[in-house]
């Protein structure tokens, strides 16, 4: 039975900084401090999943637990050394380190230096420089416990399912949902407008390009002015803008639809004009 320590290539890096050399593995209860020469272990194989840490406190808690240290008696020097090695490893693996990790490194270094300095004699109640960090670690630890308790609670659609029944009579009386619009219908309407536009066109004036963004905000502001915030699709078109205007308006409507800023419903057919009315509505 061979148990490998996940931090094997960490030991190589740490050199003097580390205080108690960790055994690489245990073979039948005996410590193995060096890798067998003929054994090839890919660099990545034993690397700890560093990206999985939730932050510097999480990493520190992991280190403390791994070394079987006690938060209440936090040995700053070895923890700081280990922490820095992990940061180094994370950098090597190309993990983009959050600034918070570096702040913690600085905090650890500061605590370490304050512990080294002789305490001034005048100070009556010299607070333990580690106190704040220890409090934070304890707090975070309990939050982690609370979080895992919460995660294990029965959750809807994962552990329990809400039982529901329907009243058929009630459902019958409920207003039927507006017809959903099929893209082809929208395209038909577009075609129809294009055709109609041909009749309006008399002369050609050079125009600036109409921006889709501007059109989108134009449509939204137009809808806001309307009672009920809705308008017939055709009314969104500015005839003066010509073919291009129609195309951009159509694109802008599709874009707004995609962003769920508006919704489109199909109204009953106008028998007179033999075309459908697409009601463009501003989403709530």
């Amino acid at each position, binding site marked *: 039975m061979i148990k490998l320590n996940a931090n094997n290539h960490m030991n190589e890096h740490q050199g003097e900084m580390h205080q108690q050399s960790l055994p690489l593995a245990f073979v039948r209860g005996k410590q193995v401090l060096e890798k067998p020469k003929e054994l090839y272990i890919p660099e990545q194989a034993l690397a700890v999943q560093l990206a999985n840490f939730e932050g510097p*406190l999480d990493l520190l808690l992991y280190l403390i637990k791994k070394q079987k240290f006690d938060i209440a008696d936090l040995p700053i020097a070895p923890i700081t050394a280990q922490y820095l090695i992990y940061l180094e490893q994370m950098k090597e693996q190309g993990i983009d380190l959050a600034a918070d990790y570096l702040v913690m490194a600085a905090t650890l270094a500061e605590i370490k230096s304050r512990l080294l300095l002789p305490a001034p004699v005048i100070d009556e109640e010299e607070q333990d420089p580690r106190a704040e960090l220890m409090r934070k670690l304890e707090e*975070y630890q309990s*939050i*982690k416990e*609370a*979080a895992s308790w919460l995660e294990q*609670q029965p959750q809807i659609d994962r552990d329990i399912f809400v*039982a529901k*029944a329907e009243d058929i009579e*009630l459902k019958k009386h409920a207003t039927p949902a507006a017809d959903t619009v099929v893209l082809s219908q929208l395209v038909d309407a577009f075609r129809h407008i294009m055709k109609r536009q041909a009749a309006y066109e008399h002369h050609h004036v050079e125009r600036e390009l109409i921006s889709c963004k501007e059109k989108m905000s134009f449509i939204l502001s137009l809808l806001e002015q309307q009672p009920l915030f809705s308008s017939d699709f055709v009314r969104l078109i500015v005839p003066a803008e010509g073919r291009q205007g129609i195309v951009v308006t159509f694109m802008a409507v599709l874009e707004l639809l995609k962003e769920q800023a508006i919704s489109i419903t199909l109204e009953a057919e106008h028998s007179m004009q033999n075309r459908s009315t697409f009601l463009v509505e501003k989403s709530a």
Partner: protein
Amino acid sequence: MKAQSAKNLIEAALFISDKPMSIQAIKQKLFTQQTITGREISQILQELALDYQDRGINLVKLAQGYRFQTNSSLSKQLSTLYNDRAPKNSQALIETLAIIAYKQPITRSEIEEIRGVAVSSSIIKTLLERSWIKVTGYKEVPGRPSLLGTTVEFLDYFSLTSLAQLPEILPIQDSHTSELITKLETEA
């Protein structure tokens, strides 16, 4: 109204209701004409719970009221039906939620202080979208940051009847929190 028909009515109403119904809601919405006391409704609910005790569906009491739900012993077999429906909670999300649950009302920067890392906007957004948390007010400090707290929907989702059910692992922070707990309890 006879006892049996009242019982049937409550049973049916709970099944078609979109959210858990409290005794108060049952009384106000279902028994506008009849005189029925909250105690009687409570009695009926207890009877119903007993009727359903050993069934695939159980009647349970939650923060917002009563709800019919599947027997939790069936969760494994049932989850295969709805594999994709349950949202996966990331560690960051569940930690943030736990902090808000325990330390409410709390600002975002206070959450960051506890977790030791920046809280991403998407996590707060997700929690708000799922209605598990809400903005309960604004802290009277420069910038007036919003204060976040959990909702009854949160309690219902995690099968809790009140915040007091959370295991005691942190000292409850201040009187405000305990006030909130009693308030939530009386609402429920």
